[in-house]
Each structure stands twice: as C-alpha cells, then as structure tokens.
C-alpha cells in the first residue's frame, strides 16, 4: 500500500465518521442525559456522556438545612427508591451521633427497603424492554405490580414516591392496621407474577438476540471502575453490601446473592429477576418475624440535632448499588460537609467501554441495563 493510498483511506474514514448527539430530550435516555456518539456506519467509535442537566445543588443545600430538614431532599435523589435513600442517610447520621435503633424499626426498614427493591426492579424490566422496542407490554405489567407496592407505601408513609419515612433512631410512624397482612398477601402473589415475567421474557428470541453479548463488562474491569450493585454482580463478582456490611438486621435473614457469568446485558437483566426472588425470601421472613416494641428510640433527637464533631460514612445496598452518605459535623446544627456516593453515577462511568464497538441501537439497551436515575446522577 503506498502512502498516498493510506492518506486517502484515513481521510475517507474520517469523512465516514458521523457525530450524533443523543438526548437530552431523547426519551430512551431515562431523563435528561445526553450522549455524544461518534459513529462509523452503525458502529460506535467513541461515546461521551454529558450530564448535569438535572443538577440542583443537593449537597450544598444539605449543608444549609438542618439534619432533619435534609431527609425529604434525599427522597428526591433516586426518586424510584426514596426509602432506601432515607435509610442510607439515617444510617450515616446515626453513626455520626451514635444513635441506637430499636428492633422493630430495623425490621420495618428491611421490609420497606426490600419492597423498594422489588418495585424498582419491576420498573427497570419495563423500561429496559421499552428501550429494546417493546412498546408497553412489560412496562404495563411491571407497573401493575409496582402499583400495589406503591399503595402499601402510601398507606404506611403517606406518599407514593416521596416517602420521607425514616428518622434518626427509627421510623416516623408505625404500620396501620392490616398493613402487614396486605404486605404478606402481595408477597405471596408476586412469585406468580415473576413466573409470568420469566415466561414472557427469558426465552424470547428477540430479547436473547438483543442482549446476549452486548455491552460486556469483565469482572476485573468492573471492580477497577468501582461498579456496585447488580451491574457488578452480573460480571460475576460476589459483592453485596447486605452481606459484606450486614447493616441493620440483614444478618438474620437467609438469602443468597445471585451472580452472573458473562456480564452482558442479558446477565444484568436476568440478575434482577433472580434478585427479586431473594428479596421476596427476605420479605417473607421479615414480615413473619416482625417484633413488637417502639418504632423510634425515645432518646433520639431529630429536631435541633447537633452531633458531636467528627465524620461518618453510612452505606447500604440500594436497588442500584452501593449508596453512601459521607457526613462531617462541626457540632453545629447543619453538616459541615455532606457528600453522596450515588451508585447510578459510578455505574455510568463504564458506559463508553461498554458501548464502543457495538451498534448504535445497542447503546440504548446498554444504558437501560445499567439502570440509572438522573435525579441521583446529577444531584
């Protein structure tokens, strides 16, 4: 090959490359997320994520509001899973101020967190299939079941999504009459729904063709990038904060951590289905064993809380990964420094590595399989 031909081929190639911008108004980007992609034909050569469209100064706001006043703002981080956000924040403040939590409150926290995981994964499946081109079937089936869980949240906490339920040293209110029975009924119903979803999806040739071998992340790379949650476990890494830290009363429940083997979109999709079954096991045990007693530590102070000077980090396994809150106190009524470790943002860092070499239509599926919520990514 002569040098002129080489030059020609490079210039030809650069002429072939196409810059496209996906989002921020594109519905498949799950909110206001933008991707700048460089395409060679239909293959992605380069991809730059652009975020910040939903930035609302969450961390600075928290350094201005009281410890209690920040609790409702944490609902709005990952607005699908407000109860796990509440828990992570309450946990870090409890560590900072050294507050004990009564047993019944710990059980209620486990119950609400597992219900949150269930409804998040149901919605996730719907949106992932929506990204693949299923117009609404799975989304509607998922939302039909999610609705029942949201009704439970509403009768317990007063709100369907912005629950604002947990307090430092326990929970805000006790369960209303008949709530536990209703929760048990729904927990007994859900395995049938999961069977139905598995029958609908896991064998489907189109789902298999669209997801297997797409957006593969090897386990080593996933660890290096700091991925957590289902995205990490789909790559075969056994890491679940519920097992590693066993915060709350998770050490009392018998559940296993499903792991993927390849780390592609199919594993990430399948892992959520399997995780929901484990959540149901925990829920069943927790609802049966729910002890009586106070729901909040009577010594715990929520209003005008002034924790001793120091720092604390509380982390939990939220449905999307490890959600952590880092707090520094200077003995005043507001945190000196407040930092959120959002799982969605950290899981998004490998997006380019997952997408390069794939077709542009797969980018949408890969993004859907990470399960991001922009409220948490941008804060």
């Amino acid at each position, binding site marked *: 090959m002569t040098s002129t031909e080489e030059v020609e081929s490079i210039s030809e190639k650069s002429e072939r490359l196409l810059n496209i911008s996906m989002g921020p108004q594109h519905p498949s980007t799950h909110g206001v997320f933008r991707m700048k992609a460089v395409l060679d034909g239909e293959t992605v050569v380069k991809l730059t994520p652009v975020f910040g469209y939903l930035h609302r100064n969450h961390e600075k706001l928290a350094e201005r509001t009281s410890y209690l006043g920040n609790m409702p703002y944490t609902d709005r981080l990952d607005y699908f899973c407000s109860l796990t956000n509440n828990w992570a924040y309450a946990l870090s403040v409890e560590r900072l101020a050294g507050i004990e939590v009564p047993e019944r409150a710990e059980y209620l926290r486990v119950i609400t967190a597992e219900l949150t995981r269930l409804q998040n994964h149901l919605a996730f499946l719907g949106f992932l299939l929506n990204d693949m081109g299923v117009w609404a079937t799975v989304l509607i089936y998922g939302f039909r079941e999610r609705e029942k869980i949201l009704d439970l949240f*509403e*009768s317990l906490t*007063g709100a369907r999504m*912005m629950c*604002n339920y947990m307090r430092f040293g326990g929970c805000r209110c006790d369960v209303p009459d008949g709530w536990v029975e209703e929760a048990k009924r729904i927990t007994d119903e859900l395995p049938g729904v999961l069977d139905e979803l598995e029958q609908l999806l896991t064998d489907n*040739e189109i789902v298999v063709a669209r997801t297997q071998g797409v957006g593969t992340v090897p386990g080593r790379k996933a660890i290096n990038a700091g991925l957590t949650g289902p995205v990490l476990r789909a790559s075969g890494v056994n890491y679940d904060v519920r097992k590693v830290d066993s915060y709350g009363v998770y050490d009392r429940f018998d559940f296993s951590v499903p792991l993927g083997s390849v780390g592609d979109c199919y594993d990430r999709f399948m892992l959520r289905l399997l995780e929901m079954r484990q959540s149901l096991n925990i829920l069943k045990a927790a609802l049966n064993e729910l002890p009586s007693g106070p729901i909040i530590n009577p010594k715990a102070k929520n*209003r005008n809380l002034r924790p001793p000077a120091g720092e604390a980090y509380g982390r939990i396994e939220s449905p999307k990964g490890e959600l952590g809150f880092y707090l520094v106190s200077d003995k005043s009524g507001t945190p000196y420094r407040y930092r959120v470790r959002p799982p969605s943002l950290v899981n998004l860092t490998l997006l380019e590595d997952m997408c390069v070499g794939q077709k542009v239509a797969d980018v949408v599926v890969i993004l859907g399989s990470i399960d991001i919520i922009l409220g948490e990514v941008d804060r």
Partner: protein
Amino acid sequence: MERMASHYRKSGGRWLGSGILRGMGVTLKNWIGSYFDPSRLVTVCYPGERLPLPENSRSFPFLIYDGDDPEAGLRCVACRICEKECPPECIHIENERDENGKPRKRPAVFDIDISVCMSCQICVEVCPFDAIEMDQIYAISTNARFEPLRLHKEQLLKPNEYFRELSPTRSAAADARREAERAKQAKKKEAGKKG
C-alpha cells in the same frame, strides 16, 4: 460469605420462535383474563370513578381550629417553629401586635406557598400544639402561577371535625394529647392557687 446461587442462562426456546410464542401466550392470558378476572383489570375510569385515599395519604398542610369560630378557636400560637424547620421555607408567619407593638401569641399572617411546599410534613411533626396537619386535597390547578397558589390564613383554616373525618386515628391521638396537656395545665394552676 455465602457463595453464588444458581444463575441460568438461556438461549431462546426449543425451536426458533417458540420463546416468542410462549410469551404471546402470557399476553393472551392477560388480555382474555381482563374480561373475566377482576384482579387482572386494575384501572378505574378516573374522573368519574375515584379510588379512596388511604388514611395516611398527604398532600398539603392546613391549620386546625376548635369550635365554630375560626378566629377564636385557632390553635396556632405563632411560635414560628414550623417556619424555621420547613426545608424549602414555604411558610411565612407574622405575629399579631398590640397597640404598643408587642407581639401577641397569634398569627396575623400565616401563608403557605404550596407551589414551593414539598409535602414532607415536617411542619406537622415539629408543631407542639397539633395546630397544623396534612390535607388530602389534590387536583388543585389554577390559572395563574403565583397568587392562587399562595394560601392565606383564611383558606388554610379548617375545623377539627374536618380533620376527624380525614384521619380518625391521627385526630384521636391529637385530641388525646391536647386533653392530657389541658389537664396538666389545670392541675398546675390549681397547685399555684393553693401555694
């Protein structure tokens, strides 16, 4: 640490297209089932038919008064704790003043900007007098952005009977707390008289 659970990986159905057909069986079951099985028909025709809200459901705060006269029965003493604790700062209170300009224990102005309010109910939790509670109103669209959404004291005041109807459990608890407080005050007064 417990080791991995079984994870299975499928590669389509037994023959090409059988997975899709199985899936279509599920949708068919759901579609036909919605004509016969009420549990598969989950929606209602919304504006005509409305599902009842659970008792704990909350939307925006309102002020409670006892008896028939809103001004006489006002529970709020303008201590301004809710104004201070409200995270988005949507409550605005001004004390009533006597002729010397000294503040009285009554609000002259009590405004809640419900376009800012995020329904967190922290004002309800911190109120020592059970004077503020969460309402269940919804569908509150207005034809202007600011003034109609700024609720004044007159719009916020609602009788205790309304709250009893809204939430029997919470209002009973609040009534019991107020009764106990009143008994304590009366005892104190009597003790003071004797002393």
